[in-house]
C-alpha cells in the first residue's frame, strides 16, 4: 500500500530547479533512504512534503489525499512527522516540556475551557503529562526530565528530538540526517531504534549521509542529484551503480 506518492514534482527558486520532475512512492512500513550530495534537493523535498514550500509543479499525495497545498500543521495532523537536522528541539525548554508539546494534537478541549482551567482541561493536561513521563522513561531520559534541552549532550538531544516527534504519533516519519555528528556507538543505537520503529509499523523516509546506516536500515534507496532522481532500488545495487559512485566521489 502506497503511503506517500510524489508525482512529477518540481520546485523552482527563480531560475534554479531544486527538484525536477521527481516521481517517488513510499510503501507502508518500509524505510526509504534518500541520498545524494549536498544541494541535491533532499531538504527541499522534505520541506515540500511537510508544507513549508509549495510545489511549482506536480503533486504530493499522502494516503491518497493531495496534500500539496495544505498548511504544515494540517499535514502534521494527518500523520506526517519530522525530525529536523539541527533544530529538532525547543532548546530553552526542559526535556519534559519538549515531549509534552509533542502531545499537542491530542487535546480536544477548546480555548475557553483551557483558559478557565476547567476540570476537563486539567484532566487532559494530566493525561498528557503522564504519557510524557512514560515516553521519557521508555527511552531512558526519565532522570533528565527537568534538564533544559540546551544543556543536554548531543546524543541525548537527538533522542529527545525523536521522542518529541514520536509523541505526535505519526504514521510517516521524515528523518533529516539523524546520525549527523554521532559516534559509532550512538549510530549503532540509533540504527537499532529506527529498526524497532519500523517493526512497529512506522513508515520512514530517511535522509542520511552515513552509508552504514543506509545499508542496514533502508529497504530501498533513491539517489538524488541536482534535483533529479539518479537511481532507485535496493541499497546493494544502487550503491554499486557507476553513476552513483561518480556523483559522490567524482570522475577520474
Amino acid at each position, binding site marked *: 500500500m502506497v503511503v506517500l506518492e510524489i508525482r512529477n514534482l518540481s520546485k523552482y527558486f527563480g531560475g534554479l530547479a531544486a527538484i525536477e520532475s521527481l516521481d517517488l512512492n513510499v510503501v507502508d512500513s518500509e524505510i526509504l533512504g534518500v541520498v545524494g550530495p549536498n544541494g541535491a534537493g533532499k531538504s527541499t523535498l522534505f520541506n515540500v512534503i511537510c508544507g513549508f514550500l509549495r510545489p511549482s509543479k506536480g503533486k504530493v499525495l499522502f494516503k491518497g489525499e493531495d496534500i500539496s497545498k495544505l498548511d504544515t*500543521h494540517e499535514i502534521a495532523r494527518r500523520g506526517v512527522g519530522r525530525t529536523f537536522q539541527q533544530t529538532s528541539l525547543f532548546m530553552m525548554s526542559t526535556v519534559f516540556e519538549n515531549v*509534552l508539546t509533542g502531545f499537542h494534537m491530542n487535546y480536544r478541549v477548546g480555548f475557553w475551557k483551557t483558559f478557565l482551567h476547567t476540570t476537563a482541561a486539567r484532566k487532559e493536561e494530566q493525561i498528557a503529562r503522564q504519557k510524557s513521563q512514560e515516553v521519557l522513561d521508555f527511552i531512558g531520559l526519565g532522570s533528565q526530565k527537568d534538564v533544559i534541552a540546551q544543556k543536554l549532550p548531543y546524543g541525548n538531544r537527538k533522542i529527545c528530538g525523536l521522542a518529541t516527534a514520536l509523541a505526535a504519533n505519526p504514521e510517516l516519519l521524515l528523518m533529516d540526517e539523524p546520525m549527523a555528528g554521532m559516534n559509532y556507538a550512538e549510530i549503532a543505537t540509533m540504527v537499532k531504534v529506527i529498526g524497532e520503529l519500523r517493526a512497529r509499523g512506522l513508515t520512514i523516509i530517511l535522509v542520511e549521509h552515513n552509508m552504514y546506516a543506509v545499508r542496514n536500515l533502508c529497504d530501498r534507496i533513491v539517489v538524488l542529484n541536482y534535483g533529479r532522481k539518479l537511481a532507485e532500488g535496493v541499497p546493494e545495487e544502487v550503491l554499486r551503480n557507476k553513476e552513483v559512485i561518480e556523483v559522490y566521489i567524482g570522475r577520474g
Partner: protein
Amino acid sequence: MVIPLVLERVYVIHLFIMSGIYSIIVLGVLLQFKLGLWNLGAAAFWGIGAYSSALLVRELGLSFWLSLPLAALIAGACALCLGSFFIRAGRVSFLLLTMVLNGVFVEIVGHWELVGGWEGIPRLPKPSIHVSFNGSVMEFVTKTPYYYLLLFLLLMTVVAFYALYSSRIGRTWSAIGLNSPLAAMLGVNLFRYKLIAFIIAAASAGMGGSFYAHYQGFLVPRMFDMHESFYFMLYGVVGGLAYPIAGAIVGSFIGVAIPELLRVGEMFQAIFFGIILILVILFARGGVAGLLGQVYPIIIKGSKGVIFPFFRELKS
C-alpha cells in the same frame, strides 16, 4: 492598596494610575513579542477602545460600566479583521503594517467631525455608580476611586494573562516563539495562535483605552500617536522580555517614573531612557524585572511557568 489613604498627594496617585494603564497595554505587547509579532501600533487599539467608549457614552447614552467591556470587544473585533491580513505577512511586514495602522487611525480620527477632529472630544462624563437601595449616586470625583478601579482592572488582566500563560495555550505560545517550524510539525496552527494573541492584546489595550478616556475626561487624537506605541515596546524591553507579566508592570512603572524623577526636559529624559535601555540590553537581558527577581525571589517564583523560556538561565 493602602496608598491613597496614606498619601494625599494626588499627583502620585495619577502616576500610579498611568503606570497601571500602560501595564495593561504592555502585557499585550510582550505577549505578541514572544510570538514574533512586533507590534508597533498598540496605541491604535488603545485609541480604538478610548474613542469607542467615548462614542458609546455620548451618542448612545450607555453607562461607562457598559462601554468599558464593549470597547474591549470592539478593539478585539478590529484585531480579528485586521489580524487575518496582518499576521499572514512576514515579521517585518507585520511591524510596518502596525505602524501604518497607528498612523492611519490618528489621521482618520483627526479628520472625523463626529469625534471632534483634531480638537477631539472635550467633556466626557465621569463614571458613576448608582447605589440602588437608597437611590444615591457615587460619582468619581477625586482620583481615588479611579485608582481602585484601575487596580481591579489591572489585577483582572494580570490574572487572565497568568491563566493563559500557565495553560496549554501559553505552552504552545512558547513553542511557537522557540521553534515555530517544529511547532507546526507537531500540529500547531501558527496562524490561529498568533491571531488569538493579537486579539487578546488588542482587547486589553481597548479596555485600557476606555478607562483612560473617562479618567482623563477628554480625548484628543494626538494622545494615541505612534510614539506612544514605541514607548510601550520600550517599557516592555526595559521591564524584561523574559518576564511577560512582571516585566510589563515593572517596565511601565519605570517608564512613568523616569520622566518624573528627571524633570529636566524631554530631551534629557529621552537620553536617560536610552541609556537605561542600552544598559538593560548589555547587562540585564531579563530586564529590570530580572534584576529585581534576583533580589526578591518571589517575583521569579511567582512567574514560574510564565517565564519566557528564552531566558531560563536567569531563573537559577
